[in-house]
């Protein structure tokens, strides 16, 4: 019916375009309701302490203050005062103890924003300090202070890769991957590489900081929030207030940047508690500094060994990973498992051993950030390919080619075989970068990755066909800027045989739309897109049924036509069928669901391919790196909207460059030294590479609609390793620690000179 595609595969303009360029697009931060009060957070000034006393009297007596809340109030009221989608250990407000500098200790609710902020200053918290542990390696030591003597209840479901149980000390998560006889393989190797690699703690800086608006409507909790995963937040809130899921509504209007940082619950519990205790609608808007104190990404230290034969074949790899998880579990078990899966690369590895441990520390809790686990692990795995190539005298692209798995080949036992032709992608990349280069003073770095993406493939969607033949799509996927409303609209238009302008979208509101597990892991086009297809097909089936009844024609004689049906040589639009059946008015509803079955039976639902590289120069005087060229290959199976794919690749690669060259959250003692975007430097216009090329590889090999598969993370996952390898080839020493700041590069250049002497 849609062999000749009209809408899917075109760079259709974004459906949110006019709203976003005119300033009309409404984000949670723009919402208000009559009678709204404002909340302000009191934060811990200690990294690790018992709370001896919280004196709220002065704050409560401040002008305009409605209520001052502490964790104890939540307990006393019988609420579940913790949240967490894997382990229920994150207090909404600290209870008895604080575990990081900046942790929410109390909440002040007042008539105005200013009154709330001023009263928050008046809350007096007395602490009995405890020894703190900031560094992940220190947290491993037997005499380290323990953050969680008692573990929270495990509440994660089947769909979450949680790693091992039986965790002790400060170990938040352990994941092991492996096969073959690693030790024997190392013994017979021609070349063994050994090194330690470090990836920094990062702040995603979604420009709309975390915020929420909460109120109770006849006993139902309603929360508007900047959340990515509205259904995950709904679950936390229902548990907290002991409400049925049906009586909690979480809605995310436009979201000002996500990148994973807005996955899972952040400020929604606090805001809803404020509404519960005051009986008023309450708004809580965090500042950027507070957002930094809410979620970061996990840093990693990886000891990696790789064994090669003389002709450059991988014999074995061995990774020992230690990550800094921060104070609470949040998404750490998943990030930890993904790091273990994503460090060794899409290669034929006869023997593998990976052990990843994530450690509780008295630092800001870490959670998801674009590609999680992949950028951290990729630098170790890919940089060792470059270092081995240099030692073996084999071209680094050729070395990768010799080891890379082909299309349909399994590289993780029991998992989906590779759904891509990564060798061909790498050839395209190398050619676009004019590998191996040759411009004096410049150097090329590149890398590949195949991430087990998509998360657990539970997704549903609904479409309503109206009596004027227009269609509304209902999806639980949230629009974070990635263009989900546009791409999903294109799928609807394609499936229903309608112009894009006839399709409306309602998204990200649990009170209205159908279930969607998450908006993350690059899943929306692939998994939600399949649910949308199914919903459209269901709706068309119903239209045929109605037509058969209304026209009194056998069902077999009714065929689909563009925007309607064909029967005995004449065509009727959807609207005409609806009106014939109902007599007046009416509509048709279609529902679609996908689950871990059929095309998605095998995990992961798809691999997200990373294949990007760059050319750079280094200022010999200052160590400053300049990117002269950036190239990405978007291996997306089929680009339903090519311009949106390029946008995802460009954004991911630029974020990768930020981490590779500038970004790092630094702890100075027990608190962050740079919790603001002056001192934490994200890429700016001046960091734009001189030349940017985005390529597409479309082989219809994805499990999504029309052979599509996800984008949004891959292009960034390899950038850290690519920057390090390019710098290494240029200056003679490979950086093992990111970001490659001017100072670090300068130091490495001195090292390289010494090596020569």
């Amino acid at each position, binding site marked *: 019916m849609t062999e000749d595609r009209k809408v899917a595969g075109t760079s259709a303009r974004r459906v949110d*375009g006019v709203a976003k*360029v005119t300033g009309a697009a409404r984000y949670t931060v723009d919402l208000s309701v009559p009678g709204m009060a404002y909340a302000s957070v009191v934060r811990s000034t200690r990294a690790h302490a018992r709370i001896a006393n919280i004196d709220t009297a002065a704050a409560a007596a401040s002008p305009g203050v409605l209520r001052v809340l502490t964790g104890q109030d939540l307990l006393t009221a019988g609420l579940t005062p913790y949240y967490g989608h894997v382990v229920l250990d994150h207090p909404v407000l600290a209870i008895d103890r604080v575990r990081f500098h900046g942790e929410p200790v109390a909440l002040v609710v007042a008539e105005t924003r200013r009154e709330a902020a001023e009263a928050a200053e008046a809350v007096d918290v007395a602490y009995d300090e405890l020894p703190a542990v900031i560094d992940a390696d220190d947290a491993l030591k037997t005499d380290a202070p323990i953050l969680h003597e008692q573990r929270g209840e495990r509440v994660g479901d089947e769909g979450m890769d949680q790693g091992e149980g039986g965790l002790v000390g400060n170990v938040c998560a352990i994941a092991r991957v492996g096969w073959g006889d690693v030790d024997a393989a190392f013994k017979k190797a021609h070349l063994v590489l050994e090194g330690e690699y470090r990836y920094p703690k990062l702040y995603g800086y979604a*420009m709309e900081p975390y915020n929420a608006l909460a109120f109770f409507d006849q006993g139902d909790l309603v929360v508007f929030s900047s959340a990515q995963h509205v259904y995950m937040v709904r679950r936390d809130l229902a548990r907290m207030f002991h409400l049925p899921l049906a009586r909690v509504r979480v809605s995310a209007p436009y*979201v*000002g940047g996500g990148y994973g940082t807005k996955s899972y619950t952040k400020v929604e519990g606090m805001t809803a508690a404020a509404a519960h205790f005051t009986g008023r609608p309450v708004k809580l808007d965090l500042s950027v500094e507070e957002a930094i104190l809410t979620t970061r990404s996990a840093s990693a230290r990886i000891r990696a060994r790789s064994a090669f034969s003389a002709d450059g074949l991988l014999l074995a790899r061995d990774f020992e990973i230690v990550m800094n998880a921060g104070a609470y579990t949040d998404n750490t078990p998943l990030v930890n498992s993904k790091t273990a899966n994503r460090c060794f690369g899409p290669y034929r590895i006869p023997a593998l051993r990976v052990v990843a441990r994530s450690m509780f520390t008295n630092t800001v809790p870490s959670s998801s950030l674009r590609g999680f686990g992949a950028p951290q692990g990729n630098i170790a795995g890919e940089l060792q390919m470059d270092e081995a190539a240099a030692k073996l005298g084999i071209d680094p692209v050729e070395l990768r080619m010799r080891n890379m798995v082909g299309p349909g080949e399994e590289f993780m036992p029991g998992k989906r075989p590779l759904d891509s032709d990564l060798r061909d992608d790498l050839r395209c990349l190398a050619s676009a970068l004019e590998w191996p280069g040759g411009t004096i003073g410049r150097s090329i770095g590149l890398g590949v990755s195949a991430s087990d993406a998509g998360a657990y493939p539970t997704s549903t969607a609904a479409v309503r066909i109206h009596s004027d033949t227009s269609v509304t799509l209902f999806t639980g996927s949230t629009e974070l800027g990635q263009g989900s409303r546009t791409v999903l609209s294109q799928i609807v238009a394609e499936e229903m045989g309608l112009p894009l302008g006839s399709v409306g979208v309602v998204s990200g509101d649990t009170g209205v739309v159908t279930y969607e597990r998450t908006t993350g892991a690059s899943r929306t086009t692939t998994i939600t897109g399949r649910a949308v297809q199914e919903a459209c097909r269901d709706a068309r089936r119903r239209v045929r049924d109605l037509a058969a009844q209304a026209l009194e024609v056998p069902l077999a004689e009714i065929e689909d036509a563009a925007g309607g049906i064909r029967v005995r040589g004449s065509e009727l639009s959807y609207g005409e069928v609806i009106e014939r059946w109902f007599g007046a008015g009416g509509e048709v509803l279609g529902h679609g669901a996908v689950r871990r079955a059929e095309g998605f039976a095998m995990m992961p639902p798809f691999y997200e391919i990373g294949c990007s590289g760059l050319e750079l120069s280094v200022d010999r005087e200052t160590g400053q790196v300049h990117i002269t060229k950036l190239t990405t290959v978007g291996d997306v199976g089929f680009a339903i909207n090519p311009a*949106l794919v390029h946008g995802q690749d460009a954004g991911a690669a630029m974020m990768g460059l930020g981490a590779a060259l500038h970004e790092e959250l630094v702890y100075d003692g027990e608190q962050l030294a740079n919790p603001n975007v002056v001192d934490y430097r994200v890429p700016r*216009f001046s960091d734009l590479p001189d030349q940017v090329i985005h390529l597409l590889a479309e082989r219809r090999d994805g499990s999504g609609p029309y052979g599509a598969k996800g984008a949004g993370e891959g292009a960034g996952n390899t950038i850290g390793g690519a920057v390090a390898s390019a710098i290494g080839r240029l200056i003679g020493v490979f950086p093992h620690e990111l970001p490659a700041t001017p100072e670090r590069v300068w130091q490495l250049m001195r090292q390289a000179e010494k090596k020569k002497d």
Partner: protein
Amino acid sequence: MGRREIHLQLNGGDRRVEVEDQTLLIELVRGVGLIGTKLSCDMQVCGACTVLLDGRPVSSCTTLAIEADGKPVETIEGLADGAKLHPLQEAFIERFAFQCGYCTPGIIVTAKALLDADPEPGAEKVRHWMEGNICRCTGYQTIVDAVLDAAEQLRSAR
């Protein structure tokens, strides 16, 4: 603290607004429903809150409302002529020069000030002029392309 009435030309219309001495310009514009102007870094480095004050781009998060007394203020809402978008807005849509859109109003307003001052900027000048605006989504190239497209559009319309 003092309250006073100020008089400004907001997106071309005369407007009298009562403000406190400490009211920030962003509070003023958002307070009258012009929610396109966004707060982010609150430190004058991200540009999301940019408005034009007397034709010059300023960070409204760190500008007092009283500074706008007697002056023209232009926000993102002032660019389109009814349903007819400004060439910058058209170009941003055409070039996919935004994703989440949170930084977009500030970026378009900053770019408008550039094109008002220099109708024929090169790519280098655009990059330099826009240095005070952060975008976390796009990677910047499409924004530079859109501003150059809009400049050409405005020149040919003259």
